[in-house]
């Protein structure tokens, strides 16, 4: 038995209580949002109905009927899924090249890539709108998919690079000996071996795409507008419509939060960039 496992009173009682307290505190705003989404707008601001109220689905029906929820949701899914696939498509070969055939410049290229994430979006927004309108891509899926892919590319390459570096080079070399070409190496050796890392990268990129608001709100009007845009249009000035607001918010973040719960393990690995062992 390890010596460290002395049990103090804190460990037996205090820790669970405190940990649960912190957990519930952090979750509370989300819980509150979901709870409020089942209240009428009137109930939502009455102190006496804060906890006890007659639940209603009115807000959700209202949202589907009047706000065209499904179109925004469909756009979110189309753009986030496509952008994730495209990002992986570009970043897997790049990370492969950097991890297994590094040159002297590789380190600098990686740093430079990350530094493109520091370019403030606001600084280049207007030129982007100008260009997008110029080539007739404003408010199209293609534009949003491209932008989402580009802003997530550096993070994806970084994550994949750190995963790929973990794979022993001998395995790839052995493949070469057997006469497998570069594509074969990627497809048959690298992807199966790094599957976990690729999955968590995909997951994180998907979450960032889904939640992205700055570009999607400003580069769309109707046709390619995502759920972020729906939120933008419904943020209820001075809070008279808490019920409605909560329903829209819940419907926008619900899918991604639930996905996050199921994939927590993967995410923990992915988020650390493989750098925390």
């Amino acid at each position, binding site marked *: 038995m390890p010596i460290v496992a002395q049990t103090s009173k804190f460990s037996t009682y205090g820790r669970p209580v405190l940990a649960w307290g912190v957990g519930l505190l952090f979750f509370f*705003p989300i819980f509150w949002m979901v709870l409020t989404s089942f209240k009428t707008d009137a109930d939502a601001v009455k102190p006496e109905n804060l906890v006890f109220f007659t639940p209603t689905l009115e807000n959700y029906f209202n949202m589907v009927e009047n706000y065209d929820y499904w179109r925004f949701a469909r756009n979110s899914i189309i753009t986030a899924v496509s952008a994730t696939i495209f990002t992986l498509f570009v970043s897997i070969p790049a990370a492969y090249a950097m991890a297994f055939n590094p040159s002297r410049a590789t380190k600098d290229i990686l*740093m430079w890539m990350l530094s493109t994430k520091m370019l403030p979006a606001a600084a280049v927004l207007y030129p*982007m709108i100008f260009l997008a309108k110029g080539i007739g891509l404003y408010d199209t899926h293609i534009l949003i998919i491209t932008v989402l892919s580009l802003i997530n590319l550096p993070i994806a390459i970084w994550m994949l690079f750190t995963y790929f570096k973990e794979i022993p080079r001998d395995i790839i070399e052995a493949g070469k000996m057997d006469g497998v070409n570069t594509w074969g190496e990627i497809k048959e050796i690298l992807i199966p071996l790094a599957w976990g890392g690729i999955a968590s990268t995909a997951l994180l990129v998907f979450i960032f795409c889904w939640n992205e608001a*700055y570009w999607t709100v400003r580069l769309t009007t109707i046709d390619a507008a995502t759920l972020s845009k729906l939120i933008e249009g419904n943020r209820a000035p001075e*809070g008279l419509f808490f019920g409605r607001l909560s329903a829209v918010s819940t419907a926008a973040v619900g899918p991604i939060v639930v996905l996050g719960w199921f994939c927590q393990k993967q995410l923990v690995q992915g988020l650390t960039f493989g750098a925390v062992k």
Partner: protein
Amino acid sequence: MSDRKLPRLLQTPAVLLLLIWMLVPLGMTLYFSFIRYVLNNLRRPEWTSPSLSNWRGFGNYEFVLNSKDFVLAIQNSLFIVCSILFLTVILGILIAVLINKTFPGQGIVRVLLISPFFVMPAVNAVLWINMILDPVLGLQGIAVAGVNDMLDGLRQMPVLGSFFSLWPEFEPISFRATQTSAIAVIMMVTWQWTPFAVLIFMTSLQSEDQQQKEAAVLDGAGTWSQFRFLTLPHLGRPIAIVVMIQAIFHLSLYAEIEIVSRGNGNKNLPYLIGEFANNNIGAASATGIFAVILANIVAIFLLRMVGKTLME
């Protein structure tokens, strides 16, 4: 084709795409920052389309430097980023240490804790400023009103009443006001990003060398000195990662600022650009160039500090 050429070529698409992504809009921003370019001007319609004949030299830069919000925006950008970093790192370490040992329901607590990270930033801001922090209709307002009601009741009591009548009425805080809106932004972003820090620190703690700890216990090290001399150094690298990733994301905060206060006394650099961009594209572009410079200063600083740890 040599043995290594093809594999290396595979990074070209990514490099090219990012290069275009950076250079084209940035080049245009640079160009716009040197010309007069406004969206609406009835007196000088020639200024409403970008053209070299509207050359203004460093005029836009001067204009931006002299505008009263510029220094405020830079200070505020840094204040917000640094506060969030400080809070998330401290809270992240404390919570990670707290939930690192097994206890009943550990899995569920972890799920609860991690959830805020998945919430859309726009929803986060809308939710906090309206439903939680609002001084009248939000939980804050309702809670303060409740406390005041209770105090009123206590004042009616026969003997103790005179004691409670010495207590002041509580005032709810308006988080849309100039002095407090940055605090609201810091609160909501800290709520959202602490889970990220917790996740990373937790993963790192799980790999801590237990034998070393046991040896320390045998040598009579207390909980605090174990934490100070073993755990904290072990967390150095993950702290670096958390700081870097968050700095990247928070330098460009926008939605939260806009939703909380519409920039009322609480502008950061991206917000200031957005404000100029409503009409004066030239000034917005010049501010953008300043933002790029600021980002690069922070980047050089961070990458020097963190890059090494990450590349090893």
